[in-house]
């Protein structure tokens, strides 16, 4: 009887680095496409960017001077090249409304969105995963039906309407939470003038400063919008968890674990969960990305000074550089999240590493 040869030595790092390189390659192409689309959108805008700068009464010569200054006299491909070059250097143009750099403005608005979406995703995951597991382990039960219906309701709810209803009930009628905005005006002044800003995310900054009254006030403001976004994300995560978990529980290795006499909690939360985690990471990343998007409408309801508010305000001021800059940034975040989930996926799934 000959013994079988041992498996080849496993180098986990090398192929992994190669995959990251490939990922960055696709990322670059996708970003280029993203910029191309926004560039095309910007160039078909019916409003003349020159006109909006110099006004109706400018002379032909003045307009020509601005056109040259903006590079609009160059052929389109050169304009695109300049646009990409600037974008890569972090220059997304100048806001027509405020005359400031779009990049700098977005950097100021973005942390608010990030804070909201992150908290929402945390809520959604903490509730959605156990709910999905509960439903998957008792298919057809009352618990399963409830998770299913509550999830489908989350899918069907217009976020902005839910926000209004939430404000009406929890702020207007019950007075359990604070109203729109990130902080009450007094605390907002404190935040701006006496505390150091590290991240732009108030919860983190307040905690770092040890300003717990600010922290508490920020919580009372963020809890409602983050809870609503969390509900939307919970709907998605619980459904996906249920379906992944059902699938894994039908696998033969689950029987193996039971044959080994493992208690049911371990079968579900260790054996099955490790496998569910693989696709679930992608789902959570996706839902995170969707929350960043969903925040556009939520932010307008809650007067939340984030990226969504920035884009919509710019929209109404016909400030196209700001709108497209915001769009590019959200697109970049989307792509980056996708890539991050891809990398995590490979870390969790040994089969994808080989």
């Amino acid at each position: 009887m000959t013994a079988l040869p041992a498996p080849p030595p496993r180098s986990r790092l090398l192929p992994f680095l190669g995959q990251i390189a490939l990922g960055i390659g696709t990322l670059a192409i996708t970003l280029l496409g993203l910029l191309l689309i926004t560039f095309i959108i910007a160039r078909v805008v019916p409003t003349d960017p020159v006109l909006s700068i110099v006004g109706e009464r400018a002379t032909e010569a003045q307009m020509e001077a601005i056109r040259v200054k903006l590079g609009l006299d160059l052929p389109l491909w050169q304009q695109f090249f300049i646009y990409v070059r600037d974008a890569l250097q972090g220059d997304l143009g100048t806001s027509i409304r405020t005359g400031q750099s779009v990049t700098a403005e977005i950097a100021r608005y973005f942390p608010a969105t990030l804070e909201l979406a992150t908290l929402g995703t945390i809520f959604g995951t903490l509730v959605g995963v156990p709910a999905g597991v509960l439903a998957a382990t008792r298919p057809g039960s009352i618990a399963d039906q409830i998770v299913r219906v509550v999830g489908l309701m989350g899918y069907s709810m217009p976020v902005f309407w839910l926000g209004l209803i939430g404000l009406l009930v929890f702020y207007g009628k019950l007075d359990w939470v604070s109203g729109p905005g990130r902080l009450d005006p007094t605390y907002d002044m404190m935040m701006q003038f006496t505390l150091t800003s590290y991240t732009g995310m108030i919860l983190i900054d307040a905690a770092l400063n040890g300003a717990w009254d600010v922290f508490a006030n920020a919580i009372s403001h963020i809890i409602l919008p983050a809870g609503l976004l969390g509900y939307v994300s919970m709907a998605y995560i619980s459904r996906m968890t249920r379906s992944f978990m059902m699938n894994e529980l039908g696998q033969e290795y689950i029987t193996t674990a039971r044959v080994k006499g493992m208690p049911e909690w371990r079968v579900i939360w260790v054996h099955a969960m490790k496998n569910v985690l693989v696709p679930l990471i992608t789902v959570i990343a996706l839902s995170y990305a969707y929350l960043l998007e969903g925040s556009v409408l939520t932010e307008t309801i809650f007067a939340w000074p984030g990226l969504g508010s920035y884009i919509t305000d710019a929209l109404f001021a016909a400030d196209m550089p700001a709108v497209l800059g915001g769009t590019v940034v959200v697109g970049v975040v989307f792509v980056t999240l996708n890539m991050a989930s891809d990398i995590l996926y490979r870390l969790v799934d040994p089969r994808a590493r080989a």
Partner: protein
Amino acid sequence: MTALRSWLSDPNPASRRQARLGQAWLAWQRIRRNRLAMAGLVIVGILLVVAALAPWIAPHDPLTQDLSRRLLPPGTPGNLLGTDDFGRDILSRIIHGARITLYIIALVAVTAPVLGLLIGTVAGYFGGWIDATLMRLTDIFLAFPRLILALALVAVLGPGIENAVLAIALTAWPPYARVARAETLTVRSSDYIAAIRLQGASAPRIIAGHVVPMCLPSVIIRVTLDMAGVILIAAGLGFLGLGVLPPAPEWGLMISTGRKYLFEQWWVATMPGLAIFIVSLGFNLLGDGLRDVLDPRSSSR
């Protein structure tokens, strides 16, 4: 009736048509047992009926203003769901709004899947660099958050119902392209496609006549599931004032006007929101049930 039933459930069908109808009947039986899916079907059915009969069942004209009757609460005689800030009957506006919602859904449902099918089947059928290019394009569109891309497009095109539909359709096609490509890849190498090719059929003919029909079922399920999302995005655009223009009774727009009166006259914003919620829940329930029935792998059993 019983004869028909036994004919349909005959395990040994005599003709291909009997077999096919029997399959459909079985699927129908399974949907009928799924109470949630039936609820969805009923909601969608009501939407269709209400939209079709709007002028006859609406108690008032949706646009007639009556400033002496503004902001009346629900339950007021003659205004079941109350009136809005111009004294227009909210119920009548919701009933007429069903037409707009249905119009948007229908337009998106005939444009986005067609575009997606075209791109997906072409990419899948030809493969090689055509596939690579088209799929990269699909990925790029998928990389854009849908609502924000729609916003940017509407910002360029200007508000209005057709522009909103165009913006939604332009952001909705990539998933269909993915689905269609996957189906095409499995069909492409099959023998009957090879046989047709040997008969000298051209590529467009093969795609249109033999590949597309194979992709249709999965695309149709996706369309049903997507409709709720389309309703929500359309309402979101309307809410931001970028969709249908006032004074049209579009539900999202109605919520946005009700926002001003949220704390005192809550019904102005709440009622149209409920309509959006119920209709999109209906499509979700129906789509969910359809998937359970038509795709046995994802069924709850």
